[in-house]
């Protein structure tokens, strides 16, 4: 065990690491290379039910230019040092700023935070990895550009590059973020700089407007991967609509999700409802308004009767469908008629707009998310069990009522076995749904830590056995998820890795790619 460092990269001696650190310092300066326990403390904490020591970095590097990153990968190749790249480092519930494996060096790009271009007419942005949604939001407001962002719930402190590269989602009509990505600059492991799509052509002015370029489309292989370091990232922004009409539709029974999805799907596919609709369970919304301890004490998951009482007390449905209309007032009026007619048929739905629910704290933060305003209200979830434990379980479902009910029931059953609650929602794509469940537990309670780990492992095992794949996962379970997609895909990923990064220096272990 090294005395000088709090961890070392796997297979690297202290002497070799000394040389690498000296070289990093010569490129970045002493102040941008961290090795002490105190300096590295913010890179260690995760919300996962595994010891922080499993994900302790050996060092962290703060780079601010492409040239510095090219030199860093040169040093990493020379000494076979693995680096784990982060942008804003706020992938909370998926691993935060900590590396996948103990001893990896964190390459922290937060200070590489220039907004390089925002084009009002063509409605796109080109930014560096450290730019936060808040920074871009303020920039757009300051310059009165009339463009809306789509961002995930940790909005203010997260950023578009990291979120999109991990294929995260938001809540506006641009909610499937990678669909709206357009052009990347990537530092490859050999130090070369690739601009994808039209960016490869000298003097092209279509890098951020035409996604495909010529030949095989490459942007996808730099998402959820470890084939390069993205240093610039283009994406499309939504022009602010003349009118915005958020609404919530509440249903009182868990089985009602079948009706909800069957009604929503055609409206979403046809574009009547254009945004990434959320179908949130009462327990996903409850923490904004209520404390768990007011409804249940002692071990075990919260009983259904308590959830019903809670929902009634706090004016929540057991399911809460948040959606919005975007357009001219006349367009919205036409679409509103279609929506209300569709949901009124069975008599089960309670339809609320800003007029009825505008002061409701759950409605308010959902409306903010659907228009790309900054809010961190969803973090109320973390107060539900307390203790800072959270993992996102994120299987994909067809947008078919029977399937969503089956996934919900299966998830709830497995969570209950381990004494955990179903804090779940479905984010509606056109034909798919991201089924998002916050597996919340108290990380200060060793019993709950063990239960959460076993529960998550069982969720992945059971869901994959039924053909339900997970779209994204925390750094403790990446190998397990990669395994569920079969040996051929895994081998192709490995082949690409060997070709692009033969020394395996870039984020070994990301998405199970070593």
């Amino acid at each position, binding site marked *: 065990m090294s005395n000088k460092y709090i961890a070392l990269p796997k297979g690297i001696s202290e002497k070799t690491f000394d040389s690498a650190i000296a070289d990093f310092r010569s490129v970045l300066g002493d102040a941008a290379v*961290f090795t002490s326990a*105190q*300096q590295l*403390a*913010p*890179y260690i*904490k995760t*919300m996962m039910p595994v010891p922080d020591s499993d994900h302790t970095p050996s060092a*962290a590097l*703060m780079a*601010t230019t*492409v040239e510095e990153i090219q030199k860093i990968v040169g040093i990493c190749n020379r000494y076979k040092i693995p680096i784990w790249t982060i942008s*804003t*480092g*706020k992938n*909370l519930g998926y691993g*935060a*700023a900590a590396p996948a494996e103990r001893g990896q060096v964190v390459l*922290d790009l*937060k*200070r*590489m*935070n*220039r*907004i*390089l*271009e*925002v*084009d*009002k*007419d063509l409605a796109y942005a080109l930014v*560096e990895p*450290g*730019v936060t949604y*808040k*920074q871009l939001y*303020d*920039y757009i407001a*300051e*310059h009165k*550009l009339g463009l809306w962002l789509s961002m995930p719930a940790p909005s*203010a*402190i997260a950023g578009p590059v990291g979120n999109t590269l991990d294929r995260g989602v938001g809540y506006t009509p641009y909610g499937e973020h990678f669909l709206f990505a357009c052009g990347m*600059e990537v530092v490859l492991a050999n130090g070369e700089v690739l601009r994808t799509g039209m960016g490869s052509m000298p003097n092209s*002015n279509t890098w951020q407007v035409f996604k495909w370029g010529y030949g095989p489309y490459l942007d996808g292989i730099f998402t959820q991967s470890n084939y390069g370091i993205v240093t*610039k990232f283009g994406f499309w922004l939504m022009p602010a609509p003349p009118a915005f009409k958020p609404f919530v539709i509440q249903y009182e029974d868990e089985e009602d999700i079948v009706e909800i999805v069957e009604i929503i799907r055609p409206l979403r596919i046809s574009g009547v409802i254009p945004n990434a609709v959320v179908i949130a369970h009462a327990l996903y919304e409850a923490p904004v308004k209520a404390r768990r301890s007011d409804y249940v004490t002692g071990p075990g998951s919260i009983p259904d009767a308590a959830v019903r009482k809670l929902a009634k007390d706090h004016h929540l449905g057991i399911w809460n469908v948040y959606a919005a209309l975007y357009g001219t007032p006349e367009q919205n009026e036409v679409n509103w008629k279609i929506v209300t007619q569709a949901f009124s048929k069975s008599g089960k739905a309670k339809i609320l707009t800003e007029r009825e629910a505008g002061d409701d704290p759950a409605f308010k933060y959902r409306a903010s998310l659907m228009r790309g305003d*900054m*809010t*961190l*209200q969803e*973090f*109320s979830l*973390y*107060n539900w069990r*307390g*203790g*800072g434990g*959270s993992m996102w379980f994120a299987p994909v479902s067809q947008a078919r009522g029977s399937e969503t009910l089956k996934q919900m029931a299966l998830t709830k059953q497995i969570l209950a076995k381990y004494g955990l609650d179903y804090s779940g929602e479905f984010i509606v794509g056109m034909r798919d749904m991201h089924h998002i469940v916050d597996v919340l537990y108290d*990380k*200060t309670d060793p019993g709950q830590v063990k239960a959460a780990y076993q529960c998550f492992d069982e969720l992945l095992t059971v869901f994959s056995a039924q053909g339900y794949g997970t779209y994204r996962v925390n750094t403790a379970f990446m190998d397990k998820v990669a395994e569920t997609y079969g040996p051929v895909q895994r081998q192709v990923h490995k082949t690409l890795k060997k070709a692009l990064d033969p020394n395996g220096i870039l984020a070994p272990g990301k998405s199970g790619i070593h």
Partner: protein
Amino acid sequence: MRKTKSVRTVTALMLSISVIAAMTADIACATAETNTEKGFRWRNGAEVYSKVCSYCHESQVGPRLFGRELPPEYIRTIVRNGSRAMPPFRPSEIDDESLARLAEYIQRN
């Protein structure tokens, strides 16, 4: 021809550098190769508070911080290490100097 101006979030510098371009610009653009300017930096503790901390600590997600005379060293430790569900914030996000100003700001409010 497309008109451009340098992009910076630090208002004072932005104004001093690109006043002429800004007067006529309808888009904001700078090419990566020629833009050697630094990116966003905090102005003061109040800005850090309003753009980061307030989203949780003013909305009942996290505890209220004002009026408690919290010692700066305690604030520094919590920000750098996190606490329960609160994530830590790195020097790359909130530099040491800005963190010191933030702690002073919280203590005196």
